[in-house]
């Protein structure tokens, strides 16, 4: 055997490179990207003007009305009509459009942040848990919690039909039972599914009997399906496919239609609009997070972390989450643009902000009728505000994607 020369492995020739984190590298790439920087500047101007207006330039929308100044054209210098300058002109109620546009920015920013926050937190968590448990062996407690939750949520349907909340608890129990059932019997699939199917029929049927035969039959059939589903010994996978099918249902609605339906259900108002836009966005983040988790979990460093004896929680939050952040960050930036656009659409239809409140979409909706009388400014400026803020977030998002994942750049 040749001598072992640990001291010299040929590495001395290389100077130790300055250490840079992935994030710092990404930031450098972002700064070098001109369109991304334009996007960033637009976004920063938007955020500063919106927050600045909200905190340092008071504006009371209620009572802001002066018919004498109705539909004045934009002016830069004081005219003989009055000392005030309206650089964006005034609208049909004589309100200063510049002021309303800047204040509308605050509302758009709020809608964007809250809606993306809702989609990101709910969708991201669902996707994270689905993907993680689909790709990693569940320990006893994890499968118990997941299967109980699954049983409970599947049981909601027969429970709702029969108006018997008991059923939810019983089906949750059935889900839990599937975990206690000896894992070693998974070879013999048929009997297990027969047992669980029968139990499902009984649970579904019995509570239905108090209500009526038809309900008992319907609930029995549902119980059979749920029982067979719960009998499949694929704890993580069945949970994941359940979550993803719900996401598919949400995605199958045209997004604006669904948002309008939710607002119609909740009632108008900016806050309700935020919730509606947020809910519509959930599936996007859930799918994105799940697919990212699935691919990262296959990486050898996840196996290596397990082989060092790290716990599931630690592996998920220390090894997987940081590695899926970049697509999530990109999607959230793009999502902000999308949410602003959706809010404007809702506002335009009169479903978002309640009237005197300044909101870009509502401002457009209020003023487009005056286009024919030549009041172009009442539509142009809020419209431009929408265009620039959306464009800014999109450019920034594109730049972030290039910066965070240099591999996809051609």
């Amino acid at each position, binding site marked *: *055997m*040749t001598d*072992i020369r*640990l*001291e010299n*492995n040929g*590495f*001395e020739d290389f100077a*130790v*490179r300055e*250490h*840079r*984190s*992935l994030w710092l590298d990404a930031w450098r790439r972002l700064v070098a990207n001109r369109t991304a920087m334009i996007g960033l500047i637009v976004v920063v101007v938007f955020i500063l003007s919106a927050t600045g207006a909200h905190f340092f330039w008071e504006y009371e929308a209620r009572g802001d009305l002066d018919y004498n100044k109705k539909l004045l054209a934009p002016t830069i210098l004081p005219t003989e009509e009055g000392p005030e300058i309206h650089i964006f002109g005034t609208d049909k109620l004589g309100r200063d459009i510049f002021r309303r546009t800047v204040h509308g920015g605050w509302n758009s920013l709020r809608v964007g942040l809250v809606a993306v926050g809702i989609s990101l937190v709910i969708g991201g968590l669902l996707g994270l848990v689905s993907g993680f448990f689909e*790709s*990693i*062996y569940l*320990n*006893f407690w994890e499968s118990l919690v997941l299967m109980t939750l699954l049983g409970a949520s599947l049981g909601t349907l027969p429970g709702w039909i029969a108006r018997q909340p008991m059923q939810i608890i019983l089906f949750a129990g059935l889900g839990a039972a599937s975990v206690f059932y000896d*894992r*070693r019997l*998974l*070879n013999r699939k048929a009997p297990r599914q027969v047992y669980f199917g029968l139990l499902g029929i009984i649970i579904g049927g019995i509570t239905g009997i108090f209500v009526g035969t038809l309900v008992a039959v319907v609930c029995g059939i549902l119980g059979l399906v749920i029982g067979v589903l719960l009998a499949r*010994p*694929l*704890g993580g996978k069945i949970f994941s496919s359940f979550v993803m099918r719900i996401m598919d249902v949400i995605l199958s609605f045209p997004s604006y239609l669904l948002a309008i339906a939710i607002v119609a259900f909740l009632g108008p108002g900016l806050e309700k609009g935020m919730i509606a836009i947020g809910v519509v966005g959930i599936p996007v983040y859930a799918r994105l997070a799940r697919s990212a988790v699935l691919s990262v979990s296959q*990486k*050898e*460093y996840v*196996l*290596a*972390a*397990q*082989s*060092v*004896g*790290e*716990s599931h929680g630690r592996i998920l939050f220390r*090894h997987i989450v*940081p*590695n899926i952040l970049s697509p999530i960050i990109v999607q959230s930036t793009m999502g902000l643009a999308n949410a602003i656009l959706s809010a404007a659409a809702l506002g335009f239809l009169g479903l978002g902000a309640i009237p005197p409140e300044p909101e870009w979409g509502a401002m457009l909706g209020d003023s487009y009728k005056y286009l024919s009388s030549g009041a172009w400014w009442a539509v142009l400026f809020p419209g431009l505000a929408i265009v620039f803020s959306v464009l800014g977030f999109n450019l920034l998002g594109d730049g972030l994607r290039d910066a965070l994942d240099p591999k996809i750049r051609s």
Partner: protein
Amino acid sequence: MEPLIKIKNLKTRFHTEDGVVKAVNGVSYKMARGEVLGVVGESGCGKSVHALSIMRLIQIPPGEIESGEIWFDGQELLKLSDKEMRQIRGRDIAMVFQDPMSSLNPVYTVGMQIMEALILHKNMNKKAARERAAELLSMVGIPEANKRLDNYPHQFSGGMRQRAMIAMALSCDPKLLIADEPTTALDVTIQAQIINLVIKLQEEMGMAVMWITHDLGIVAEMVHKINVMYAGFIIERGNVRDIFKKTRHPYTKGLLGSLPRIDEAPGTKLVSIAGLPPDLVNLPTGCPFYARCTYRQDRCRQEQPPLEETENSDHVVACWRWKEI
């Protein structure tokens, strides 16, 4: 002395849509403390799965350890709780993986990843862990270890990453190091460096090493014993010398024949084993190697040969006709 690891009739299966894949089929052997064992076989012969079964890193489902006992240092690993098993992983049994490019997490510095196990198992504080990590890095032959700790994996070459992985694996002085084809993804000169490094560290630290590989040539110089696996069975097991000089199984013979030799006349063709390993879903009833064997006879198709002792009690082989080979 009590063996470090004693495996009895280990069977690992994967439940897939095509049926039950019988990946490991009743593997039994012992490994002494400080022993270096080579586990050799083609791709898909159950080498890695059997190692992952020892670590209990088989994904369940679809995987399942159907039966068997794995005694490690007086403990039955398959009976431990998840939490107890996590204590063993990394502290008593450590593992080095095949692909150094993906076995380090790109978002953390190399130093942090080495410190991880130290903080987890040795309750060290950050400062002590960092010092130890620097020691480990220089032990595996990375110069300027202190500065290198703050490097990210992408700033390391493949060979350096594998060294870092070895440092990580050795951080808690494990009793057993499982190396799952750690040199496959590296070029030949780096391979030799890594092998030499592991031999040196093994001699210094006295741990047992299980070296999994498909390349008999690699293990020839470094191991004490060899397990030759085929279709999830151990088909021959013995001291290196016996395996190389007194080969008793036609499959091992085929593996040896497929190695290029430096003393061969130029132009000699390498021998390859005809055919493919059997389908692990539908294993044949007789000898698993029957279809590809040049020594086969009728008996081999009907009855599976058990592992039998040869002239040397340490050298066992599963072949009806081992005496003739």
